[in-house]
């Protein structure tokens, strides 16, 4: 249940501002792909264009193709809502729904869509999703407490549980650990390793060690200067990006000689 994504010649705009230019890449199923690059080079923008979250921003639009299993996600007959059900997303800052309990947060994808579900079915989904997000043991006794009452790291794993509860094929994560302590970070990295067997995972990170620890493929984005569009510089398996990149810019960046 994981899918391959082929991006070809993607230009991403905010109004008239071209934020990301000419990106082509292939994202393999059942693998972890990491995006690295300096701040403002368009990693988040590109990630959000993979599940059509980009167009939620007024004036934002995309040119080019994102093909998943032979279907262009930006085709005129495709409903963005369906795309987002297939391609889930975890945000940089944990954002559980403040009015919902832990269990309701996990079920949010189904509940918000008014899907009918038997009690036992719902309980099973809550348990399996929380197990999947490595959070079950910490919260199993307080599933009816508010989700916003958890610690930051727990909230982030709750958001992951919520994302995998809708059973997506692909999981996009935008700096999922940037607000977390090293222990929660490790928990989430372990989780990414486990999820990899079922999902296609794309993760944005500023942490080189993290990228080298968790990812199979790494893509380096860069930007020529403010106001210029971000571009994909190179993409390759993680080991070679970090040991012998083909581009000078990549080498400078991963060795910390950037800027």
């Amino acid at each position, binding site marked *: 249940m994981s899918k391959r994504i082929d991006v070809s010649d993607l230009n991403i705009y905010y109004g008239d501002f071209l934020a990301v230019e000419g990106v082509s890449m292939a994202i393999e199923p059942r693998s972890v792909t990491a995006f690295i690059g300096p701040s403002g080079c368009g990693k988040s923008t590109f990630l959000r264009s993979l*599940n059509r*979250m980009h167009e*939620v921003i*007024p004036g934002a639009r995309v040119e080019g193709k994102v093909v998943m299993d032979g279907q262009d996600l930006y085709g005129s007959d495709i409903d963005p*809502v*369906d795309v*987002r*059900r*297939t391609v*889930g*997303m975890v*945000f940089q*800052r944990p*954002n*559980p*729904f*403040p*009015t919902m309990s832990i269990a309701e947060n996990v079920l*949010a*994808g189904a*509940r*918000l*869509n*008014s899907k009918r579900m038997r009690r036992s079915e719902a309980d099973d989904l809550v348990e399996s999703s929380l197990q999947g997000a490595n959070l079950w043991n910490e919260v199993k006794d307080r599933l009816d*407490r*508010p989700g*916003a*009452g958890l610690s930051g790291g727990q909230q982030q794993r709750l*958001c992951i549980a*919520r*994302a995998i509860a*809708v059973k997506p094929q692909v999981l996009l994560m935008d700096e999922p650990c940037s607000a977390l302590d090293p222990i929660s970070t490790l928990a989430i990295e372990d989780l990414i390793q486990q999820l990899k067997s079922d999902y296609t995972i794309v993760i944005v990170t500023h942490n080189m060690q993290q990228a080298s620890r968790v990812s199979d493929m790494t893509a380096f984005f860069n930007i020529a200067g403010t106001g210029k569009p971000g571009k994909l510089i190179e993409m390759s398996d993680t080991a070679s990006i970090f040991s012998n990149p083909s581009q000078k810019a990549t080498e400078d960046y991963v060795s910390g000689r950037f800027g």
Partner: protein
Amino acid sequence: MTQLTSPQRPAVGLGTTRHLPSWAPYAALAVSAAFAGAVLALAGFSTAGWLVLTAVVFVVLLVAASRAVEGPRKATDRFVTSLVVGAFLLALIPLISVAWTVISNGAARFDVEFFTYSMRGIVGEGGGAAHAIAGTLIITGITTLISVPVGILTAVYLVEYGRGGVAQTITFLVDVMTGIPSIVAGLFAFALFTLILGPQARLGIMGSVALCVLMIPVVVRATEEILRLVPHELREASYALGVPKWRTIVKVVLRTSVAGIATGVTLAIARVIGETAPLLVTVGLTTAINYNPFEGRMATLPTFAWFSYAAPSLPVEASLDRAWTAALVLVILVMLFNLIARIVSRAFSPKTR
């Protein structure tokens, strides 16, 4: 001779500052009250003068003492604290005064008869305001039923969908509506129904339409503010789960802001429930209970109170008592709505534990 460092304070380190004892403000208050009393006893006593003089002497005394003992920063703090407390007490005066006047004057007729009888066929003492209470509840209820959906939907449009010219125009019109004098709203409803039914028409629904003109902008404004407070991240979290926009608005945005909306709606109800002028020109006044807002005049608490006071029947005392009790009931109604809004807010507001 210039002194470079103050003698009490060591040049390095945190030092120890001296404090006024915690009873100092109370002592200062007592002293200034006594002083002001003594001065006014010589010059002719008046309560208002005494209070004002006490306040002035108190501030001067406390700030001077604080400056001498605690230094200028603390003295400024005490001065501003006094100003803030003073402003609070000042704001409290009309509130307490109104509450006291209404309760003490309205208590006389606050009895079962007042709530069960109308004024139909009543001459002299006795009678009640059942007809006015029913009228106020019906007219305000219909107003709320119309204004809340219209107001909330308008706010949703402005916050979630509105872009460019249309939204700006609506915002501008809502702003203009907020400033409409209530009598103009009444005349608008009167003119509207005159076109349809002729100038003799006096209906409960006319009053509701007039009040809607006053209530809708308040609801729109309050709801708009609250909806803008809902973090964009929550909407995105919902979209990312594959939830369509309209469901996101209903189940995440509105659900998260129910508490605030309830408060806003209550304030809007409180704004219109006491309106008198627009109801006088549209609904008129009557002495009997009329439950039908689509036929005939209706009594309402504000118009009832106004009429009983402005044109009392004999004996005048009984009429005035009824007016005061009507005012009291109105205040209690508003308080009840506030209470309900509080309960709703409590039940629906986001929690962390």
